[in-house]
């Protein structure tokens, strides 16, 4: 039986680790490679690096960064932020990333998902979605809207529709990030996560809102997520990856504990 995964997300800005609250007010909090290595030794199952500057000039820095991570981390990791083409995705994959995350560029041109899936495989193509709660309308019947450009630009696109569309186009996994819950540490958006997890047949990673071990338990059970993504809850040393996994194990969730 597969274990539920603990995923740690590191926001990277110019090679530094940053953490945002409600997607604004980012501050640098350390060396991401040293942090990543620490989480690796502490039993994280997968890592995500988001390049939050994601400017064109920054591309080469990011490739170099990914190569360095791949020399030190021997578990799967993915990279996201500013991936606009098959070439971007292939370069990151060849530099050592197991998977790549697309977000804004895929909303602007959805064929990008199938192109990347064709080039590097569905299992390596993650569709990341930033989603906020809205009043249900004819255009957005699920009551959730896709937001792009780091969570600041509303699109009028229905969140549930986009998740299904992403799967159809060849995404092998979805990251469901709740803008409303992000940085609040009040818990994941369970309803949103469950609604999407029940509607697709690819793995779902829940993101945004983790503040306590109970929150992970809730989203992995009630929320039907395959993996729980955390950031500040481990970045500031409040909990270790081991703490979180032991908590989940005690409550009967299958997690990887031998490492």
């Amino acid at each position, binding site marked *: 039986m597969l274990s539920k995964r603990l995923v740690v997300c590191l926001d990277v800005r110019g090679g530094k680790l940053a953490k945002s609250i409600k997607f604004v007010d980012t501050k640098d909090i350390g060396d991401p490679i040293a942090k990543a290595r620490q989480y690796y030794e502490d039993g994280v199952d997968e890592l995500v690096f988001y390049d939050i500057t994601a400017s064109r000039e920054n591309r080469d820095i990011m490739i170099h960064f990914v190569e360095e991570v*791949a020399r030190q981390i*021997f578990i799967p990791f993915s990279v996201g932020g500013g991936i606009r083409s098959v070439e971007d995705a292939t370069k990151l*994959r060849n530099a050592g990333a197991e998977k790549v995350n697309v977000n804004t560029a895929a909303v602007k041109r959805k064929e990008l998902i199938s192109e990347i899936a064709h080039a590097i495989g569905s299992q390596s193509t993650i569709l990341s979605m930033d989603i906020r709660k809205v009043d249900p309308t004819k255009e957005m019947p699920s009551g959730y809207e896709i937001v792009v450009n780091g969570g600041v630009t509303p699109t009028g696109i229905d969140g549930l529709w986009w998740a299904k569309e992403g799967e159809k186009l060849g995404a092998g996994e979805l990251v469901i990030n709740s803008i409303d819950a992000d940085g609040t540490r009040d818990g994941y958006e369970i309803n949103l996560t469950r609604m999407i997890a029940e509607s697709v*047949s690819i*793995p779902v990673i829940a993101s945004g809102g983790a503040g306590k071990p109970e929150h992970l338990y809730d989203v992995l059970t009630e929320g039907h997520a*395959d993996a729980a993504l955390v950031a500040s809850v481990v970045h500031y040393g409040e909990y270790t990856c081991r703490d979180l996994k032991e908590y989940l194990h005690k409550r009967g969730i299958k997690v*990887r504990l*031998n490492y």
Partner: protein
Amino acid sequence: MITIIDYNAGNIRSVQRACAEVGVQAIVTSDPAAVAGADKIIFPGVGAAPSAMAYLEKTGLDNALKNAFKSGIPILGICLGAQIMLENSEEGSQKCLGLVAGKTVRFSLKDKLLKIPHMGWNEVTVVQPHPLLDVIKAGDEFYFVHSYYPQPADKKNVYAVSGYGGDFCCALGNRNLFAMQFHPEKSGQLGLRILERFARWDGNAAIN
């Protein structure tokens, strides 16, 4: 020195980096002559069996591998590199290397909640001792990402199993050949220890 076979599938550098981490030098090559003269061979895995086999046949790497197997060179197959050691695969009509009797089959899952590909960390249970697997204890997990798995015809070739809607073979061997469906290069320190074992392995499957 380990020779890693490059068959144009991309992302095989991760195996080379993992070898470097355990202090083993590894070269990447697609030259059949280099394979013939190797001390040890790793056939890493990404992609589909039919296209990989087509590439091996085109370059003459198929015969180089078969000869390396006959001459007793220790060979390690990973993921697709395990599937391709069998006689054929449900992924296509192309014949595979046939160094182990049996075939590669696709997951056929009754439980709708189980997704394909089988992706993530899963337990590996050793069913027959092998020098490369003596690092594995009960409950140890390894990283998998695949939709097909190897199914040796004879149980004597099955060394470990994992469970996903039923048990499937995740490690197989035949003399100086050993192969695993999971990725030791992506399975943390436990995976690295298997690669370390392979670097020291003389190709004898018996436990000393």
